């Protein structure tokens, strides 16, 4: 072995023994985490350690692509969909097919053994690495570019068709047809006036939340002139969540302060 290469090679070995267990732990987290978000986190960990492994195998371009495309684009897309379809539903642990989980794990162990012994056993170990191939073309990115736009240029052009059909397919699948026509400003105004005509509902904007001496939070309801709470000054969501504040209690401080000021004013008048 070339003595100049020894530090680099041991570096790759150290990297392997650090990154490979992390990748496997991330993969196990993906399979065993009950919540989908934790599974996605495990997946991201696994992918990043794979990027580290690529870098250690003299494939810096692929390492960057792995980080940008997989952990950047693909995992973000997964997380978007995860947020859309509800994060809080943990996976059910009920087996629909009897013994399926046990058999699945057995099949997994069998597949691992098969891959390790059948495929791994057939590998010879010639002392060449990608370093020469990278150096022959003046760098990893240059070498890949030469292959992509040279020998594999037709495949590369085909991927553009694939990506276009992917984008169009996603738009087609995620697009949903309107069942009712969309209400525009004119129709909404007509609805408001119809409501005013039939039930006498105020067509103008809703009252804003209350402003008190201690708070003007969105959860504080406004008071009507007779001291009762204006129900419409609060968002329905806040009421359902129980986030609305007690308006009479908030107004008490104001009333007490007014009373105190008036008492002082009365004293002053008395002295004069």
């Amino acid at each position, binding site marked *: 072995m070339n003595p100049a290469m020894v530090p680099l090679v041991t570096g790759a070995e150290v990297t392997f023994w650090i990154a490979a267990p992390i990748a496997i732990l991330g993969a196990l987290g993906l399979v065993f985490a009950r919540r989908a978000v934790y599974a996605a986190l495990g997946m991201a960990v696994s992918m990043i350690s794979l990027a580290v492994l690529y870098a250690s195998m003299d494939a810096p371009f692929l390492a960057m692509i792995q980080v940008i495309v997989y952990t950047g684009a693909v995992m973000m897309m997964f997380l978007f969909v995860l947020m859309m379809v509800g994060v809080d539903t943990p996976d059910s642990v009920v087996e629909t097919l009897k013994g399926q989980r046990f058999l699945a794990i057995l099949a997994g162990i069998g*597949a691992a053994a098969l891959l390790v012994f059948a495929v791994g056993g057939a590998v010879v170990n010639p002392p060449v690495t990608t370093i020469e191939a990278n150096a022959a073309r003046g760098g990893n990115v240059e070498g890949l570019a030469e292959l992509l736009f040279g020998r594999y240029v037709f495949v590369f052009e085909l991927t553009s068709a694939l990506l276009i059909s992917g984008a169009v397919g996603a738009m087609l699948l995620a697009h949903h047809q309107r069942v009712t026509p969309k209400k525009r400003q004119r129709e909404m105004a007509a609805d408001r006036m119809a409501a005013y005509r039939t039930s006498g509902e105020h067509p103008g904007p809703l009252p804003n939340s209350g402003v008190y001496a201690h708070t003007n939070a969105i959860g504080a309801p406004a008071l009507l002139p007779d001291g009762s709470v204006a129900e419409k000054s609060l968002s329905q969501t806040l009421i359902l969540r129980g986030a609305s504040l007690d308006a009479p209690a908030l107004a008490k401080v104001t009333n007490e302060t007014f009373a105190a000021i008036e008492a002082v004013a009365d004293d002053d008048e008395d002295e004069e």
Partner: protein
Amino acid sequence: MMNPENYLILAAILFSIGAVGVLVRRNALVAFMCVELMLNATNIVLVAGSHIHGGLDGQVATFFVMVVAAAEVVVGLAIIVSIFKTRRSTSVDDANLLKL
């Protein structure tokens, strides 16, 4: 140079974990992520192969696998979203319309 079989064994382990995940998990999204893990495991084999044989063709193949995986994820997630819109669920057990 370290034994390249290590990379292949790592890839085999990751591939098997992904396969078990596809078989075991009920959530379509997690099963889909497990498919991505299997694709990643094959990518390691390709990169390790190019590393062993001193060529860059394996890395080009990995590049194409990544492109295909990105397109596949877009379409797959769109299918999951459209199933969720109609059935309010992402469990693979709930999509059983083809069952007798």
